[in-house]
């Protein structure tokens, strides 16, 4: 497919990386010629320098014949305009990043009347993820499949963790659960574990199961403590502006700390129920005065990664049940993981995954004629692993075969994590078969699956 990406920011570059790896031809439009040169040298893409909303620039980039245009410049309006122009020029599909909370309510209108096929909002996704983590504090990461019928949680194995030093083969019997450990991350290495894998201190493990089974498991092994009641949000970017109303609506007590007095006024006006504090959060005295000790959850989302990391590390020296840090840079995210201060949220990874899912869905229909469309796609462990959700279509040839027999035919490093059949969750074992119209969750290190058929070697 021909893909045009307008804007080469963090989301833009992330998309360029993922999309060019999947073998699509990518054209990048950016106003900064140095940036364009940089990406052209780094990735196998074509670059055009200019304003993405200019017709001549778009023509030069080939908008007439492109399949997808993705506009991810910092300006919402520029993104929308670029997409509208491209659509008129002949682009088949348009994806715009729109982040302003004020536009959130009119996404439906923008899709139907402005010709925007998909709107991605990294900050909104990040806020949603953060809210999920606050509601389920034992997990570092939480993803949903099949409208929430199956969830995948990441938990970190600390010292004295109940699962520490447990071989996977004993997991089901010891914890009396159906849940499946589908992936483990040890240092830089990602493992899809077999029965002989032993969980060690420092690992992160991913568990898939229905929400109820996960809750039961956590209760059984003592991971669920008290529910979080109060949240301290440090920084006032868009994530906090999406997060605060969601949390307030759920009855959490929210305290927001922001340095800029004018912004504080604005926040106090937007969220009358929240407590807005004007102060410098990188000053430990301020945090102590405002009672960080004993706070249920602390969400750190200032614009600066380093500051966020430092604040989170400080917060971890106080009694805080859950710390969630916004980190944009993958390198720092790893550092934060190894420091073990809590969960990280990376907004642009969340939206990249959403865009990729859409692109693969298009590629399915357009070129190969597959029918087992991707329903959900998550990038895990720094993009090394994907968790995908497929529907089993009638052209899938391997229905009715027990997994025991199917396994040798599968590509390496592929695991069937869960099957949803007629609304019930089935945890796969040797005798399980795949049937038409099942929904299947696949965890894989192979990163270009477009169709369920692709899992077969």
């Amino acid at each position: 497919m021909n893909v045009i990406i307008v804007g080469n920011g963090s989301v833009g570059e992330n998309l360029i990386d993922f999309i060019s790896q999947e073998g699509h031809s990518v054209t990048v439009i950016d106003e900064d010629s140095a940036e364009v040169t940089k990406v052209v040298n780094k990735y196998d893409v074509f670059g055009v320098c200019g304003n993405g909303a200019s017709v001549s620039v778009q023509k030069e980039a080939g908008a007439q014949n492109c399949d997808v245009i993705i506009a991810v410049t910092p300006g919402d309006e520029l993104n929308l305009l670029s997409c509208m122009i491209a659509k008129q020029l002949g682009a088949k599909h348009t994806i715009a990043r729109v982040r302003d909370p004020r536009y959130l309510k009119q996404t439906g209108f923008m899709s139907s009347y402005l010709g925007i096929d998909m709107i991605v909002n990294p900050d909104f996704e990040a806020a949603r993820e953060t809210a999920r983590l606050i509601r389920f504090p034992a997990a570092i990461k939480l993803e949903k499949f099949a409208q929430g019928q199956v969830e995948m949680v990441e938990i970190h194995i600390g010292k004295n963790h109940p699962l520490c030093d447990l071989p996977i083969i004993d997991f089901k019997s010891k914890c009396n659960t159906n849940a499946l450990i589908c992936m483990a991350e040890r240092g830089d290495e990602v493992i899809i574990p077999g029965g002989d894998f032993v969980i060690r201190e420092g690992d992160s493990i991913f568990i898939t199961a229905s929400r109820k089974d996960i809750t039961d498991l956590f209760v059984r092994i003592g991971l669920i403590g008290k529910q979080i009641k109060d949240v301290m949000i440090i920084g006032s970017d868009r994530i906090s502006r999406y997060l605060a109303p969601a949390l307030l609506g759920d009855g959490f007590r929210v305290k927001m700390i922001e340095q800029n007095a004018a912004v504080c006024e604005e926040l106090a006006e937007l969220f009358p129920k929240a407590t807005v504090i004007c102060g410098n959060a990188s000053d430990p005295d301020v945090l102590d005065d405002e009672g960080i000790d004993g706070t249920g959850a602390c969400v750190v989302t200032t614009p600066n990664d380093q500051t966020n990391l430092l604040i989170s590390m400080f917060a971890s020296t106080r009694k805080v049940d859950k710390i969630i840090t916004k980190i944009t840079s993958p390198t720092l995210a790893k550092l934060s993981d190894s420091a073990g201060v809590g969960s990280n949220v990376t907004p642009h990874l969340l939206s990249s995954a959403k865009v990729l899912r859409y692109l693969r869905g298009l590629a399915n229909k357009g070129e190969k004629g597959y029918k087992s469309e991707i329903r959900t796609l998550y990038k895990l462990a720094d993009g090394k692993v994907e968790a995908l959700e497929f529907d089993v279509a009638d052209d899938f040839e391997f229905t009715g075969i027990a997994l025991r027999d199917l396994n040798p035919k599968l590509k390496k490093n592929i695991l069937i994590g869960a099957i949803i059949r007629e609304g019930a969750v089935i945890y796969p074992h040797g005798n399980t078969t795949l049937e038409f119209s099942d929904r299947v969750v696949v965890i894989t290190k192979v990163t270009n699956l477009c169709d369920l058929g692709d899992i077969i070697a």
Partner: protein
Amino acid sequence: MNYKMLRYITGQLLIVECLLMFLSLIVSLVYGEFANLEAFIIPMAAMLIIGLLFSLKKPENKTLKVKDGFVIVGLSWIVLSFFGCLPFVISGLIPNFIDAFFETVSGFTTTGSSVLSASDFDKLWAPASAELGMRGVFFWRSFTNWIGGMGVLVFVLAIMPQQDMKSSRLVHVMRAEMPGPKVDKIVATVRKTAAIMYAIYVVMTAAQVVLLLFGGMDLYESLCTSFSTAGTGGFAVWSDSMVSFGGTVAHPNFCIWVIGIFMFLFSINFNLYFLVLTGKIAAALFSEELRWFVGIVLASTAIVTANLYSVYGNISDSVRQAFFQVSTVISTTGFATDDFNLWPNISKTLLLILMFIGACAGSTGGGIKVSRLIIAVKGTWAEIRRMVRPREIKKVFFEKKAVEGDTVKGTFAYIVAYCFIFFASFLFISLIDGQNIETSFSSVAACINNIGPGLGEVGPASNYAFYSPISKIVLSLDMLLGRLEIFPLIFLFSPSVWREK
């Protein structure tokens, strides 16, 4: 200071007042009070001549500043009262000029404090053909309540030609005259806003006139009573206000309920009626100020009813008396269906407190205004919180919107200025006239809040005639300060405004 514009608007104002007085002249003619016609003809001629002279030359520069708006309003109301009191003097109803000025200011500011004694009311009901017939003059007296209720400059704005309004920023004039902490246009132009306000005012007044006719009043009584109710003024055409309705009304209790309910309606923010007219009924009903106002009225009525049960001995009388008196005091009208001076202390104290609360912003009522009190209470609470949590930023919310810091500060400033003026006047009239504390305190309270009758010697059964001239002038100024919400008069009398080029 735009003196030319000041002169021009004063001229327009005088012409308008002349036209309004013409109605009273007609009433005099209808009742055949030919002996008293000059009471209107002389002031009308004076106003017409001066008005025409003043508005002969239109000013080139029509731009008004915020300050100009205040000064124009302050000056206009004094000019208005000066010419408005002439019929009382010339007709001989109130021969003393200061007394007549007091009565007129009391009328225009919708206070309703009177210097008239019971014997003066006999002149009203004297045979029409007799020398003493004063129906026209009394009509004018009630009509001043109606004019002052919505504001006479708002009326001038409503009828001013559109080309005069261009670029003149008359919104400052409207803001200075309309009561409330924050006045805004409800439609795009000042003229249209003023016209809509007046249309609502006229229609509601007409509705009340019709209902009172059903209650058995004659057209004259009904008109005068409705004018005084609509402006929340409180001038009655009977010497005992509404206690007996002169003994001639067929259904006095029905009339009491009608007047009570209309006083309540006229003390609600008129913007809400506009919302209802444009179909936004839910928005109007959920107004925070309205809910507080209704809450205060209901709670006070309940307390006074319980307290009055010992006086009247039955529920229906107690409820009617309690509701009417609560409504008349909180709307700052000042009618009386009984001498509440003789009521138990709890009721009297409550009524005295209600005088200060007053009506809603944007209504015809006076007092501090419910919205201002809500903002002040919330603002004080926010300040107290700030003392213990210095880093916290807390906005004051009113009507679901954050109130700007300036509005909160303005509200505090208003209340401080109000208290200062109140206590200065209280001290002053106590020194001059030496009345007891109850009388002096409630006199100032009743004047500055535009109620009318107070407690003690100025209760509903008495009048203000006994005060010395100098105290009457102070009380007149209090009434103007209360009606115009202090700042226009302060600017009018501050030398710096006039010195400045």
